[in-house]
């Protein structure tokens, strides 16, 4: 193998200009920040390539969402590629399900440093450094969105004298939380004789195999919903004498964080605010910002304040007001989820021969008995049958989700049943 040292960056799932999900705040300011977040992350990626003086960049699909007929995303991508061309960085791109070749494409004359892999068969492109082929980059693009066949089968190493990199958008091991596009198995990848499998599709960073070959998902460059918590970025890879070392580099502008705060020990709203702000200082980032989903949980005095007296809205407004989202280091509460309960002894009520006791028994039974659940579910999900107002925009919750809602319903019911008692206290 040729022993010239070289460096490259492995990125995937940039999803440029595609919107964030599961976000319901109406603030225009924060919407603008989130809309631009994928671009900031992309700039961070380009800056990383330039600062680290890498030889090339490989992108394993989903640069933008073709479904959005996205020109802005493609154009910004083009600008990034121009910058890399000026800095002598080559780019190899495999398209994935979101940016498949069958989808819309803005007519753009790409700079010469960028190579897009075709969709017929895996292509092999040699990479020259100082007049020698130091690496061979293999890749294939999706011809359409719904690729269910195994694309990895056709990847072949032609020469063992060079460092072989495979770039492909695939679901290794058929993960259920991702669409099962171009599925393949880890064992297959291990056997193929490649040195590095640059994968895309899975948004969570994961090293599937640490060495010989390296099989890695860098994850997406910017998280776009609350499920995508934690750091987001790309892999900076360095090859010397055929040995691969890699390092995860963050690119995201905003980070999603789930924050939990119990109200059990708290007596007043001030105490709650203080406790939350204390948590904020711990998660406040140096650069960019944090989008936090704040879960209030536990049984306590404050439950009643929060649910009946509208303190939840005041709290949310207060927490948002004190943040300057235009600057680095903001923590913005995206939503406040109440999972709190009344400070009551449920066990005591359960044993009581009262309507409250019976209510608690019914609630418990609904969670446990399929029959009860189905009964409740039928009447509760009526709303989703209204196609015009609801059904065409959102789908009904899963049973699992509905069960978690049931617990909330239990608290709501309890609160009504015990309202006077609570008012008196």
């Amino acid at each position: 193998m040729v022993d010239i040292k070289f460096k490259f960056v492995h990125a995937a799932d940039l999803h440029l200009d595609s919107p964030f999900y599961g976000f319901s705040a109406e603030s225009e300011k924060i919407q603008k920040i989130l809309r631009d977040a994928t671009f900031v992350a992309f700039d961070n990626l380009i800056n990383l390539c330039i600062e680290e003086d890498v030889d090339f960049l490989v992108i394993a699909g989903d640069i933008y969402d073709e479904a959005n007929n996205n020109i802005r995303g493609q154009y910004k991508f083009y600008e990034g590629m121009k910058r890399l061309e000026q800095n002598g960085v080559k780019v190899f791109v495999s398209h994935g399900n979101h940016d498949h070749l069958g989808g819309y494409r803005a007519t753009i004359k790409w700079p010469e440093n960028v190579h897009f892999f075709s969709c017929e068969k895996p292509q092999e492109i040699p990479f020259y450094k100082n007049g020698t082929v130091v690496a061979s980059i293999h890749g294939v693009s999706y011809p359409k969105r719904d690729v269910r066949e195994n694309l990895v089968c056709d990847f072949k190493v032609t020469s063992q004298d060079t460092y072989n990199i495979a770039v492909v958008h695939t679901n290794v091991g058929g993960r259920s939380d991702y669409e099962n596009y171009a599925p393949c198995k880890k064992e297959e990848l291990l056997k193929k004789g490649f040195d590095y499998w640059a994968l895309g599709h899975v948004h969570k960073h994961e090293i599937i195999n640490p060495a010989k070959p390296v099989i890695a998902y860098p994850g997406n460059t910017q998280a776009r919903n609350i499920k995508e918590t934690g750091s987001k970025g790309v892999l900076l890879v360095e090859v010397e004498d055929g040995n691969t070392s890699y390092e995860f580099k963050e690119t995201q502008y905003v980070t999603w964080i789930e924050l939990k705060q119990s109200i059990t020990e708290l007596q007043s709203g001030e105490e709650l605010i203080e406790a939350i702000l204390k948590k904020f200082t711990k998660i406040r980032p140096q650069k960019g910002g944090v989008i936090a989903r704040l879960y209030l949980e536990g049984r306590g005095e404050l439950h009643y304040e929060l649910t009946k007296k509208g303190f939840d809205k005041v709290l949310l407004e207060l927490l948002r007001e004190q943040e300057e989202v235009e600057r680095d280091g903001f923590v913005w509460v995206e939503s406040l989820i109440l999972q709190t309960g009344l400070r009551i002894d449920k066990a005591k009520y359960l044993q009581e021969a009262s309507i409250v006791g019976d209510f608690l028994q019914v609630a418990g039974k609904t969670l446990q008995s399929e029959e009860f659940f189905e009964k409740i579910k039928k009447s509760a999900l009526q709303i989703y049958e209204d196609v015009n107002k609801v059904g065409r925009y959102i789908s009904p919750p899963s049973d699992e989700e509905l069960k978690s809602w049931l617990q909330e319903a239990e608290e709501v019911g309890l609160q009504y049943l015990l309202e006077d008692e609570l008012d008196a206290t």
Partner: protein
Amino acid sequence: MQLKNIFIDGFGIFSNKKLDFIAGLNIVFGNNEAGKTTLLSFLRSMFFGKKGAEKYPPLSGGNHGGIIIMEDSRGEEIKIERDFSARRYIFQKANGTVVTESEFSKMIGNPTETLFNNVFCFGLDELADFKTLCDEEVSGRIYSAGLGSTKSLVSINGEIEKIMESIYKKGGRKDDREVKRIANTLQELEFKIKSLKEIPHKYNELKAELAELEEQLQNDEEKQVELKKEIAFYESLLKGWEHWLKIREYEEKLNSLEKIENFPPNGLSILESLKSQLKEVELEIEVKESSFRQIARDLESLAIDNFILENRTDIENLKDNLALFNENRQHMEQLKREFETTCSKLKDILHNLGSTWDEKKLQRADVSLQTTAEIENYRKRFEDIGWQKRTLQSTIYDLKKEKNELHEEIQKKTAEKDKLIKSLVFKGNPEEIKDTIYRMENLFESKKLVQLKNENLEQNLKILRKQFSEYESDVNNFKFFGKGVKISTALLFATIFSIPIYLLSNNVFYGILAFFSGVLFGTATVLIIEKIITNQFRKDKKEKLVRLAEIKDIIYTNEIELEKSNKELAAIDEKLGKLAGLFFQKKEFSDEEIYEVKRKLEKDISTETRISIIDDSLSHLEKRLTTKKREIKELEEKIELLKKESYSLMQKWQDYLSARGLPDELLPENMGNVIEAVKKGKDLLEDKNSLEKEIASRENSIKKYACKVSELTGREYKIPEDAEQITTEVRNLQDKLLETTELVSKKEQLLAKKQSAWQSLEKEKEKLKKINKEIRDLFILAGAENEESFLQRFEIYKKRQLFSDNLATHTANLKAISQGFEFKLYKKILSESNLTILKDKLEKLHGELRGLAKRLAENRELKGSIITRLESMCNDEKLAECLFKRNIYQEKLKNAAKKWVVHAMAKEMINLAKEKYERERQPAVLKNASRYIKLITDGKYQKIFSPYGEHVLRLENNRGKTCELSQLSRGTAEQLYMSMRYALVEEFAKRAESLPVIMDDTFVNFDEIRIKRTAQAVHELLKTNQVLFFTCHRHIVKIFKDVFQQERIHVINL
């Protein structure tokens, strides 16, 4: 909450009416039209306002209204005051705090008026008509009694439904609920997104259009360049046309002239200049020949004296030495005088030194530095010895003086010592004395301690003895009442008893009897007291005797101790006596005598000490005296040695003098003068010799000078007579030499001038030859034979030159104009064209260019606008914004739907719970009601229940049979309703302030037994509530009185 008093200001038949109530059962009795129903209405109106009050305007005067005073379970009063006509009311606590009506309502458990009228305050009408109880609200209350709340499940359902409806409701055209609003926004967004998604396709179309446009633009731009080039070509042809015509003209002219290709450049002017040069040179030659001849003549006329020239060196020497010659002459006399003076001075010195001294000896005499130093050395040594001798003598004198002083001090000290020895008392051994004093001191110390101890012991003994005697007397004197006391006490008692008895009974016998019995009693009393006290004191005495024995023991021990101490004291005194006896021959000593001995001993010791100090200083002084004596002896020896040294030095000095032939008697200190004189003599002798030499040398020099002058003048001179003449002669010779030398230099200059004149003449002649040759060469070059033909050729050549210059100028201009084009082609086209053709062509080309430029401008503008549109498409955020918003609204919709679902589920579960509750548990109300019916019917009916899903009541009898209401007699049915009401009242009392229960003759349909039992039920109800019972039946009042047995019952007669 109970009713305490009411005051009716004006209501129906009542005015200014006051009633008081108790906490228990209040029976308001009155015949028909006594105002029972009016009172009932007054109470209802007071609680709930004027609704019912309108029917009862104040008929007997007073304001329409009144006051009721209530008392809550904590004993706090609350006043309700209403004025129905003025629609004023006030709820006020005893402390003056005003409460609102709703606060009051809450306090009493939020009963509605319906509820109050049906459950708390009812007459026969309400009782018999159970519809009122079947009212949704009341039935809800039955179940909510198990709810722990005053709220009904019905209202809870209502509240939840309200929330759900605020979120979503199916159908509805004018629906502006949350979900609908969100759905509308989403629909709008979808529509916008759809249209925005068209833009990308337009982008690609525009891009294609742009590419096409760019290609056309490029073609047109190329064409424009070509055209501009062609126009430039024709414009330059037109510009060069004039030049082209001139070129052709000059070409023709040149062809018509003879071809003279070469002609010397500037030939004519060169010829002219050569000719003028020729003339100049010829003139010069003439001038130079005449000047040469003149120089030759001047040379011949010069005459020079050769003798003077030959002796030139001698004459110059004489001139130089003339001053010296005269100086020598003058100096000679002075030298001779100096010489004589020196000779006479020398003679004097020799005479002074002595007859033995002549010039020769003087010359030989040694007065060198070495000799002087040696003599100085001798002098110093003599002086040194003398000084040492003097120093030593003075030291010896001092020492002898000190020796005598020491001697005197020794004698003084010896005398002092003798005097001290005589003053000693005991003359004993000092060590022995010291030891004795020490032992005496020790003994005195011991004695003092023993004496102190003795004193303490004696003191102790004194105290102890005193204590002992006190105790002893205590013990011995112990006795209580003496016989006298006993008797007098007995008598005292007797008297006290007997006198009043005697006085009261007026009977002596009684008095006596009383007296004796008094004596007996008194004696007995005293004896008993004495016995008690004696027992106590006996115990004390025993303790005191023990203590006494203890003190006695201590006294004994102390006495022995004292005796021992006294013996010790005697032993010490004996020892002291013995010690004193060592120095004084006496047997007995008093303390003072011993002290005296001790003091004398101490004095002796101090005298001994002083003697030993004097001894020390004496031995020291004697040592010093011996040292001094030794030192004096040593110094005297040293003086002897110095004397010897002085003598030997004098011997050496005399030897030194004789060795230098100097008189013996001379002392080193006188030698200085002799040496000085010899040195002077020697200097004079030297001066004399040098003067002699100088005189001879100067005479010789004068003679030589005179000889030389003679040689040159040929005359003889005598010195010093002819000295002045010699000077004159020498000056003459010098003048002559100067003159001759000038002539010689003039001749040399002329000769050089002659030579240079000759050379310059020759040069001019060469020049002439050269010029002539140049002229010939010029002709040859011009191809001419003579000057005439030369000039003709020159004219032709000049013309040709002019033509070709013009030709070249025009050609150059044309070339400049045609720059950028191929010149050959250019010329070809010119030769083939004429002016009109060219102009026409140019006009045509300009037309074409204008058309092209217009098209280009249009297309460029179009391109610009396309690019702008494309750029704005690339940076357009609208689609992203809408997509984002769509997600947000979807999330909002999810949240709203969730809220709806959660509430729907809560509602559903509450309903399920209610069903379960109704099914599985009869409400407490029914249970309580069952208890009441059982009581009232004496167990005939056991249970009231409400079947699941039906809002009706059923009754179960003691045989387990279920009866519907319709099957019951009126009385039993009323009893059932009554039971239900009591049960509800009881339930309410659990959660809020209990209200008074007011019944208006509700028992009229009950038989006597059931009335009695109902009264018992009322008694039961009193546990929680106050009861007001209105009736016009005396038997009912009686039954109540029987059942209550006057307890907690209050009858008010209206």
